[in-house]
């Protein structure tokens, strides 16, 4: 299958601090790829480099076209939706305003209305709170809102940064179930960054293991799950 995202030799530095050292990975079209690693491995930075929040050195190709060096608003317009660390909710705005902002770049008004309904079907709690200020939502609800907002873009590639962080297990299950549905039913490719390796490996097709800014292990998710070193270090058994 063709790759929807190809990253080669990615270097990122924050000022004088080098964080990524020649990273390379791909995301298959309609697939789910996960990047695992401990805190500080560079996972969040990787997503930021793809979505353009930080400027990378190296090659990032989306659908065969280079996007490295382009500003994040342009990259979003190409169809890459990034659900960032910390969720990035527009706290002063209502749930519905948040969702409409997610669909800002779309021209197809009627379809936006349909997507709004679909999103409320996925996340009924958002539908109940649609006129509430987003800042008053709980952590789990805000994560759902962030994901919903990303979906309003009708993205072809979804970047998820640690969606399980700080959430109750049931909520996390629900979110992962929805991600799987979106991937299988709508064909949205997913690049998932997670510390919770067990969860991520349960969802993804392919996995990469990151340590201090370098890929140390790569392969199909099943293989990675069975790998001894990974089991001991990241899966705890």
């Amino acid at each position, binding site marked *: 299958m063709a790759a929807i995202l190809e990253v080669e030799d990615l270097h990122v530095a924050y000022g004088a601090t080098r964080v990524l050292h020649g990273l390379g990975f791909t995301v298959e079209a309609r697939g789910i790829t996960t990047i695992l690693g401990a805190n500080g491995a560079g996972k969040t930075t990787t997503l930021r480099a793809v979505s353009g*929040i930080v400027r990378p050195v190296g090659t990032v190709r989306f659908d065969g076209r280079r996007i490295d060096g382009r500003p994040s608003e342009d990259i979003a317009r190409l169809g890459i939706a990034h659900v*960032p660390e910390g969720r990035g909710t527009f706290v002063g*705005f209502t749930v519905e305003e948040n969702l409409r*902002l997610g669909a800002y770049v779309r021209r197809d008004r009627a379809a936006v209305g349909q997507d709004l309904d679909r999103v409320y079907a996925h996340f009924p709690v958002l539908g109940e709170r649609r006129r509430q200020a987003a800042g008053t939502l709980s952590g789990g609800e805000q994560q759902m809102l962030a994901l919903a907002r990303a979906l309003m873009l009708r993205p072809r590639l979804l970047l998820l940064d640690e969606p399980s962080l700080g959430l109750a297990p049931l909520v996390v299950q629900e979110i992962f179930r929805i991600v799987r549905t979106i991937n299988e039913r709508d064909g949205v490719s997913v690049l998932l960054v997670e510390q919770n390796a067990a969860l991520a490996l349960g969802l993804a097709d392919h996995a990469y293991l990151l340590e201090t800014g370098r890929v140390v292990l790569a392969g199909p998710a099943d293989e990675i799950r069975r790998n001894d070193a990974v089991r001991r270090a990241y899966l705890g058994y």
Partner: protein
Amino acid sequence: MAIDTFLQQVVSGLATGGIYASLALALVMIYQATEIVNFAQGEMAMFSTYVAWSMLNAGVPYWAAFLGTLVLAFLGGFLIERVIVRPVEGKPVLTLVIVCIGLLVILNSLAGWIYSYVIQPFPSPFPRAPIRVGTVVFGPHDLGVIVVTLAMLGLLYAFFRYTTLGLAMRAAAQNPGSSRLCGIRVGRMLGLGWGLAALVGAVAGLLVAPVIFLEPNMMGGILIYAFAAATLGGITSPFGAVVGGFLVGVIENLAGTYIPFIGTELKLTVALLIIVVVLLVRPTGLFGHAVVRRV
């Protein structure tokens, strides 16, 4: 009669208050989007008013010149943000402050050079005849200012609240990072914000020039009152800026009328007192909110 004087002064105060409210709103709009206080807001308004004056001198009818000036002011504000402010976006606050100060002196100096420092009269579009309501007499310009200001503020409110572009502009101001992830061109939104602020300022300039006469330094005192209004209303609240503006206008007028030693000399002191008192008692103003910082 005492009540007549009181009402007249209140209406008069609301009129000047409308001017302060407009300029204060312009300041708050830019502050919310970029966290800088645009010290050049007054000079931008003054310069726009001179542009209108040129048009009027060339024979353009008043309302055509008014609209033309608004369009030019909007474009000017947009260009100033995209061309002059943009290279220092993201730099420390004080760097931006210096750029605004630079802009201030440039506009002031250019106006003086192009148009000279001679004080000019400026026409009011409203009829001359005083308007009687019962026993109270109101100036038509005052009433006109109140109507125009409220109409403009109403339109702005509707724009920000009910249109998608307005929503995007508010989002870009509050959370530029997330806005970019939604594909919103934040830079362009900032430019639009400055354009709108300049437009609002131009309206203020056009409405106040008939009263205080046109000269390059005319907006200095008004800007200070706008600061007082924004402080009173709360620098984080556009609604506060507007309410603050009207309040300051009325307070200034009533203080000038009823407190004997505040003549025209000490009028500026009223603005300063308002600033100091508000900052001592309630720094966030009537409608502002404190910025809560997470540790």
